């Protein structure tokens, strides 16, 4: 039996074979975001409406008159995926209540890049989460504004060279640490927050499925390797995603009702150098700079472990989302 036949035998039990994000889109080879979306859609299933912010994924998937989307999909602008998504949620909710659409649980899902989420879309995201819409928000974090040519965002890691944080003679790469948006979402008391990576497909899809079931807002922050922007080999996408986790640069965890849990546990972390050295965007880093990054990664990882061990679930407090429903 060939590998493909084996796949046909076993895969349907583990994964929906139907494609909701179809081939023929124009993403680069080895695009981590496109893979993440494909898996995300499989985990969500057909009863889903997607609101997409401007960025690579919107552009590569929707060249009129073609579309890669088998799910209902809407795009308005760069910074308003959360706002449009919350309108979709409100619309579906009221029309269902009034009997104007079938009485089914259709989930509103907003997606945008790190720029559309962590920078220009932060306000809309915060507002939507605070209002508590029954909506999943997925940030596809490829750590820069890729669609416009690899410019720096607040998601770009320290030291990475981008087209607006270049490795110059005096200033070398980005000079600031990455913004921790999952933590900001936890601070909004969002009932389900998780980090994810398409390099761990089942972990990712399980998280999407969990988030889909939440009655209220949920947030998934997905690290998505971008070979074009990271100056990495396109066949290394999956490997780089795993290295990000294995080095502790991007730990995979979830926060359910305030309770932190590592979903992929590491007995020992690999040195960050293993991750950094495979990417052209870090090529200029000196051993001292790499050491600084190592120190910060270890510190952040330990902070996270403290939370994993120290914080309890709200469900002990009988927390419920919404007072009157």
């Amino acid at each position, binding site marked *: 039996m060939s590998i493909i036949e084996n796949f046909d035998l076993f895969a349907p039990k583990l994964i929906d074979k139907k494609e909701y994000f179809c081939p023929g889109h124009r993403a680069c080879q080895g695009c981590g975001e496109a893979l993440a979306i494909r898996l995300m859609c499989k985990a969500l299933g*057909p*009863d*889903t*409406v997607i*609101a997409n912010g401007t960025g690579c994924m*919107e*552009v590569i998937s*929707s*060249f*009129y*008159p073609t*579309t890669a*989307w*088998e*799910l*209902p*999909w*809407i*795009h*308005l*602008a760069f*910074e*308003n995926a*959360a*706002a*449009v*998504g*919350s*309108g*979709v*949620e*409100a*619309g*579906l*909710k*009221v*029309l269902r*209540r*009034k009997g*104007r*659409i*079938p009485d*089914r649980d*259709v989930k509103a899902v907003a997606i945008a890049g790190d720029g559309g989420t962590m920078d220009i879309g932060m*306000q*809309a995201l*915060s*507002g*939507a989460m*605070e*209002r508590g819409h029954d909506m999943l928000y997925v940030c596809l974090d490829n750590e820069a504004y890729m669609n416009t040519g690899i410019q720096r965002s607040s998601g770009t890691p320290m030291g990475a060279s981008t087209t607006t944080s270049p490795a110059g003679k005096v200033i070398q790469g980005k000079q600031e640490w990455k913004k921790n948006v999952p933590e900001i979402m936890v601070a909004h008391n969002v009932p389900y927050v998780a980090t994810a990576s398409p390099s761990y497909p089942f972990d990712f899809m399980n998280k999407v499925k969990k988030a889909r079931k939440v009655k209220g807002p949920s947030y998934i922050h997905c690290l998505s390797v971008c070979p074009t922007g990271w100056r990495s080999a396109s066949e290394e996408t999956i490997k780089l995603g795993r290295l990000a986790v294995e080095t502790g640069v991007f730990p995979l965890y979830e926060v359910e009702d305030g309770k932190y849990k590592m979903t992929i546990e590491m007995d020992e972390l690999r040195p960050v150098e293993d991750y950094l050295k495979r990417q052209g965007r870090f090529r200029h880093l000196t051993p001292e700079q790499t050491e600084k990054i190592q120190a910060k990664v270890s510190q952040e990882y330990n902070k996270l472990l403290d939370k994993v061990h120290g914080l309890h679930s709200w469900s002990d407090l009988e927390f419920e989302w919404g007072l009157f429903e």
Partner: protein
Amino acid sequence: MAKQVGMEVGIAAAEAVGLCNIDMAAVYPITPQSHIAEHLSDIVADGRIDAEFVTVESEHTSISCVSGASATGARVYTATSSQGLMYMHEILPIVSAMRLPVVMGNANRAISGPINIWNDHSDIMPQRDAGWIVFFAESGQEVVDMTIQSFKIAEDNDVMLPVCLNMDGFQLTHTVELIEFPDQKEVDKFLPVRKPFATLHPDHPISMGTLGMPEIYAESRKSQDEALINSKKTIFKVWDEWEEMFGRRYKPVETYLAEDAEILLLTMGSMGETAEIAIDELRKKGMRVGLVKLRLWRPFPFEELKAVVKKAKLLIVTDRAVSFGGSGGPVFIEIKSALYHEKERPLVYNSIIGLGGRDVPVRDFVKLIEEAAKSGEKGIIKDYEYYGVRG
């Protein structure tokens, strides 16, 4: 029988929205729109209508949010003013391009700077090319009637465009007027539940708001322009239906003593009522003056306006916004260029007036018309002048 009640116009606007049985509203407060937002939230909180009232964190989100809901097939409303409208600016042309029915009330207010909360039209004029249907109401009655009409027009499957109804901030929104409210049953008959052309639903997945390459972008813009121009037909049809059911007649260009007038004054919005009194005074003095009131700003009613002004010698266009470094105010620029090819046409004079809440009483209209008439006789017409402005 419809009943007449004395009511603040902003509150009445919210009552009209309630009569339309909206499904969803997203509103962010700003003076002088706030009473609309507050009263609408009362209507929903008291269970008078079954709707989602989304308390957004900004106007950028209010317009994005109602657009998302409209795409699911809901009847949606928002309202704003001034800086709020400016903040929405990025999204406005996307809503019309995506052919999403949205109704928005705009309580006209000056834009910053300097910051100023009072009335003029400098908020709506920068939105001129956003592809929306744009109305101006003159009275509380018109605000109520036109709010209801706006939903019917926006949601008509021959139109599918957003509508902005302008009402002068304070001068109109905060004035108590005697208003006749139609019965709920009559409104339901006039405005049945929305029947959307296409919606976001898994039963028939579609992609909305896709990427337009150079091969298609221009065609999409042209067809949108045609859609806006074509909406005139539906607007007139809806106005005919309104007259039949409620007895009040609506026209894109209203006139007052204009038939035999040599001099015409043109206003938009609530100034029209004051201007009528000035026209009466000047008529008593024997001057052949009349008034033209522009109710429909987009799509612009060229034919209707030309027909009304062609016999006059002088047309005085008032503008309540500035087009810095341009050839006059935005309304004047529009009208002057529209008349360029006409054989029969008046001289056109432009007065920028009533900026940032500066009061324009009857005597100012009288003076404005008399002075313009004098320079008109000599055939000297400056491009535009600021009326009564120091320095």
